[in-house]
């Protein structure tokens, strides 16, 4: 910051909160909806849950451009692979492709990605591909700038083997807590539930009442 600092030059980033949790038979993924460009909110209704294949999605954090480009390439590559083999891609295959990109180009990219989905071989899986390009599977993982604020919350309230509805409530609450504290996260909470039948999307509003529309104070005089 100094003389000549220009707001329009700050890169667009998905300063973000993203999260994914495995349950028996699938995964629950969640994210906020704010894309920020420095202090400006470029998009307040972003969808950060990006489809890679029918039953594999990724949650993107870091540079919006970088993660969109990589997600497009991985989705294309897996679609080609699916056409060639007539088999649905494995979640691990998607995660591995993400990792290869994020590792080989690590000096030029700012991308922290969570890959989650369902496949026939291993059921619901969640993989974490953080900044340096390592790959690891976790049953519950959080990412993005907002995740720093909810490590304690997640540690306290996560139990392995939670049923689906509990997972949804847990992810919703966690993302809401992160949005509360993180300036780079905001908007609505987008949730996706992926199982053998595909994805079911849900949307939760971050308002006090949970309503999508809030009337403001009408008058400043009693």
């Amino acid at each position, binding site marked *: 910051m100094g003389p000549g600092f220009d707001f329009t030059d700050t890169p667009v980033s998905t300063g973000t909160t993203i999260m994914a949790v495995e349950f028996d038979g699938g995964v629950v993924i969640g994210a906020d909806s704010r894309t920020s460009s420095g202090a400006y909110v470029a998009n307040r209704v972003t969808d950060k849950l990006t489809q890679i294949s029918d039953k594999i999605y990724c949650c993107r954090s870091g540079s919006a451009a970088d993660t969109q480009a990589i997600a497009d390439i991985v989705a294309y590559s897996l679609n080609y692979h699916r056409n060639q083999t007539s088999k649905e891609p494995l979640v691990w295959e998607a995660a591995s492709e993400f990792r290869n990109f994020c590792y*080989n180009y*690590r000096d030029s990219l700012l991308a922290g990605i969570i890959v989650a989905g369902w496949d026939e071989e291993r059921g619901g899986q969640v993989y974490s591909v953080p900044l*340096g*390009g390592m790959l690891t599977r*976790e049953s519950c993982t959080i990412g993005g700038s907002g995740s720093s604020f909810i490590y304690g919350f997640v540690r306290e309230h996560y139990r392995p083997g939670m049923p689906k509805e509990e997972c949804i409530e847990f992810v919703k609450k966690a993302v809401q807590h992160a949005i509360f504290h993180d300036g780079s996260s905001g908007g609505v909470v987008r949730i996706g539930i992926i199982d053998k039948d595909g994805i079911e999307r849900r949307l939760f509003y971050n308002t006090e009442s949970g309503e999508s529309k809030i009337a403001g104070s009408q008058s400043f005089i009693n």
Partner: protein
Amino acid sequence: MMNNAFAQPMWLNGPAPGQFYNFMGGNTQAELPRELTTAGPFGTKHSTAAITTGSSVVGIRYAGGVLVAADTLVSYGSLARYQNIDRVFKINDKILLGGSGDFADIQSIKRSIDQKMIEDQCCNDGVVMKPKSLASWLTRVLYNRRSRMNPLYIDVVVAGVDEAGVPFLGNVDLRGRAYDDYVVATGFGRHLALPLVRERKPKDRDFTFEEASNLIRECMKVLYYRDTRSIPQYTVGICSASDCSVKGPFKVEENWTFAETVEGY
């Protein structure tokens, strides 16, 4: 990153200041994609320093085999991010590898090593690579990368036994520096574990398995007390003529009782 200190008389007719100069003679690195060999100047300028890191690895050689131990933590700066990661790997029936430093680079070098082991199996001659050979190969790879100003930010312990059952314990670092000894360690272990083990070494013989195990337990305890980037859970790889496997995770012994006797500061 490339500084103008390179612009000196010896560079007459050489590359422009800041340009990478290829010392390789015939073998240009232009053959390999840039991204894979040099720290990239394209796009956003991010440091190639380690991002997700593993802390210490400790190895001890005893009469008949080797032990390699590391905690199960991969840190993200000061954040204890991934707390259930195995950092000791079985490479083949005769070799263990303990990895510290940037974990993405560890996963990358392990992939290359696994490919080598598969090639070995394809030869189908019953011969598996020896730990000393792997250590030599790693030295060359790491030295080459550092000479091209694009290091693999890792510090590894290579351990195992050769076909005669003679144990080997070595350490190779990110600059390609290698040595072997009866005790090796990386990171904080180098400062805390090495002196601890060296002090207990009997002058005239190797450690017994019991002595080595107890020393590992004690080293992991001290490292947990005194390394901020550690957790009290670790895995241990054991390699002898009869068995090569990674065991664990184990818990570190802790004693905080004396804390109540301290007051004031």
